């Protein structure tokens, strides 16, 4: 089926022509009175206006957050958890509407937003509601009369800068632990994809006390930077790329506050020869694992963008993999059959094309794709054919995240060579290992320098499995209760129950 285009009669999504910032529980105009047009990558046309906020608006949001922080921090864990669950319930009741909006704003197929983005975002609020209820501090008897108590306290007010590849899900990854831990948040959505988060805030914003959640829209340099630099935030969380990551750490160093960063990867997907041993379901599963680079148009920090295939099966595996890829055709993202949607923005499209260009110039062989394509009826949209390069790991297309539906393929002779190629990268976010041998799987998973190694699976993002990077891929672990600690202080109360003086002075 095909969903009606947002704003047309019968569509589940009707956008306002203009949105505001959500500050202190109210919709507030940006101080400057300026707005920017929000463009859908599906057809390249603007569909709503979003505030072009600046430092004044960030300050206003921080005022609201600071006014709310004491009461929210003291709100009983049970109550906070209940509110998070309520947010999840309202999202679930509006799942289809939010999924269609996310597709329209980001360009990803509705098949994915319905099956992944929304269900995962909803579950994230429930997961952290659960973690919160089960959380305990610590207590230790240091000697007969002395007891040490460890209690968790919120940091206070935190700043969060959200990427455009999974706008609502990435917001959920950051918001759920921060709110659960008792913090107030000032969140800046990506300027490419602010719309669904605003629709979401219309639905759930007032479930939370005023000022606990604040959303300020705008450009990185005008709104993100004053948030990241602000002395009134106790922590900054950012997902994006390395230079901005460095800048955020630099700003944080000026204020002596912690950061968590997720900065991308160049994830290897390793296929050992035994995947081909039998013509069975597992062989098909491994071929599907190869094709996972096309998920979300490759706009995933963990895109399996390097495929390393055992030389013994290289030809057979690659032929079958290419016929699998040939079935992935860009189409209207609102069509529930479409497997590949639009790239999120024009500059993203241009960057992907520039990488295809350097790949060819470096001598990588383009086995399929390698070009922009048009989808009938959506001529202004940003579509790229799934692209498979063959080359070697020194090439730029093997070393930098293209963030498009592209995979670079090479072969290996031995286990050691596979691991050496896998680790020959600046990044260490994700990796895939495909084998029928539990010994090979475990050895490989331990030898790969990456925070997440999918073994005989890929692109699963369940809550309660920690996600984060080694090397240049960032700092911190999301999607697990350990993220609560990234949003908490530890209070130690060291108590003497001895009525007698120490006799020291």
């Amino acid at each position, binding site marked *: 089926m095909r969903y009606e285009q947002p704003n047309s009669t019968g569509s589940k999504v009707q956008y306002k022509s203009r949105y505001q910032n959500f500050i202190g529980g109210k919709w507030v105009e940006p101080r400057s009175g300026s707005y*920017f047009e929000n463009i859908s990558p599906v057809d390249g046309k603007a569909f709503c206006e979003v505030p*072009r906020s600046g430092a004044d608006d960030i300050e206003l949001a921080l005022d609201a957050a600071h006014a709310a922080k004491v009461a929210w921090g003291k709100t009983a864990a049970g109550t906070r958890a209940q509110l998070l669950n309520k947010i999840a319930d309202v999202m679930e009741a509006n799942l289809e509407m939010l999924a269609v909006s996310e597709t329209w704003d980001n360009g990803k197929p509705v098949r994915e937003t319905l099956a992944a983005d929304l269900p995962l975002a909803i579950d994230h609020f429930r997961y952290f509601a659960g973690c919160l209820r089960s959380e305990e501090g610590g207590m230790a008897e240091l000697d007969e009369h002395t007891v040490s108590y460890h209690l968790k306290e919120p940091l206070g007010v935190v700043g969060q800068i959200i*990427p*455009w*590849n999974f706008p609502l899900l990435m917001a959920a990854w950051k918001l759920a632990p921060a709110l659960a831990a008792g913090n107030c948040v000032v969140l800046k959505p*990506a*300027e*490419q994809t602010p719309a669904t988060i605003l629709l979401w805030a219309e639905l759930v914003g007032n479930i939370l006390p005023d000022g606990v959640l604040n959303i300020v829209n705008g*450009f*990185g*340099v*005008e709104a*993100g*930077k004053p948030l*990241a630099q602000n002395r009134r935030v106790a922590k900054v969380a950012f*997902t*994006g*790329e*390395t*230079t*901005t*990551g*460095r*800048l955020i750490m*630099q700003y944080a160093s000026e204020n002596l506050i912690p950061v968590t960063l997720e*900065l*991308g*990867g160049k994830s290897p997907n390793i296929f050992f020869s035994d995947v081909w041993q039998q013509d069975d379901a597992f062989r098909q599963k491994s071929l599907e694992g190869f094709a996972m680079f096309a998920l979300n148009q490759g706009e*995933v*920090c963990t895109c399996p963008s390097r495929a390393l295939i055992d030389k013994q099966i290289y030809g057979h595996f690659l032929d079958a993999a290419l016929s699998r890829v040939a079935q992935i055709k860009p189409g209207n993202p609102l069509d529930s059959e479409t497997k590949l949607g639009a790239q999120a*923005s*024009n*500059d*993203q499209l*241009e*960057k992907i094309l*520039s*990488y295809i*260009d*350097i790949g060819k*110039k*470096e*001598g990588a062989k383009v086995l399929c794709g390698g070009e922009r394509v048009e989808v009938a009826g959506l001529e202004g949209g940003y579509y790229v054919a799934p692209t498979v390069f063959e080359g070697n790991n*020194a090439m*730029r297309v093997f*070393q*930098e*995240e*293209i*963030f498009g539906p592209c995979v670079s393929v090479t072969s290996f002779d031995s286990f050691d060579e596979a691991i050496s190629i896998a680790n020959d990268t*600046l*990044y260490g976010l994700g990796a895939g290992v495909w084998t029928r041998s539990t010994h090979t799987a475990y050895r490989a998973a331990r030898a790969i320098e990456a925070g997440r190694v999918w073994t005989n699976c890929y692109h699963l993002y369940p809550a309660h499995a920690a996600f984060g990077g080694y090397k*240049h*891929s960032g700092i911190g672990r999301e999607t697990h209760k350990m993220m609560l600690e990234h949003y908490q202080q530890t209070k130690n109360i060291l108590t003497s129950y001895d009525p007698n003086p120490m006799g020291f002075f």
Partner: protein
Amino acid sequence: MVGSDSASTVGATEAARELIRSLRARHGPLMFHQSGGCCDGSAPMCYPRGELRIGARDVLLGEIEETPFYIGGDQYERWKHTRLTLDVVPGRGSGFSLEAPDGVRFIIRSDVCAVAAAET
């Protein structure tokens, strides 16, 4: 027209040069740092000069319109066989790069260096 201001491995199109001049008129002296990683990664970031602290391992690739262009040392090692050309396209970016509010985005186009190509 692509040109380089010095013996460097980074050049710029006339459109990029014009944008640098326009940004400099509004923001003062500028700097570039080549980013890596996801989202807006692989894109060059344009900041007011001195905004990003240049570290001991950053490499100065060259200057464009009197604007220094840096890349991280580790990334340089993996990019040094290519010659970069700064260009500009309509877009929005997502980092803190100065041009994004103008509705344009700097982008890098690349060629394989003649020296490196001769070696292979």
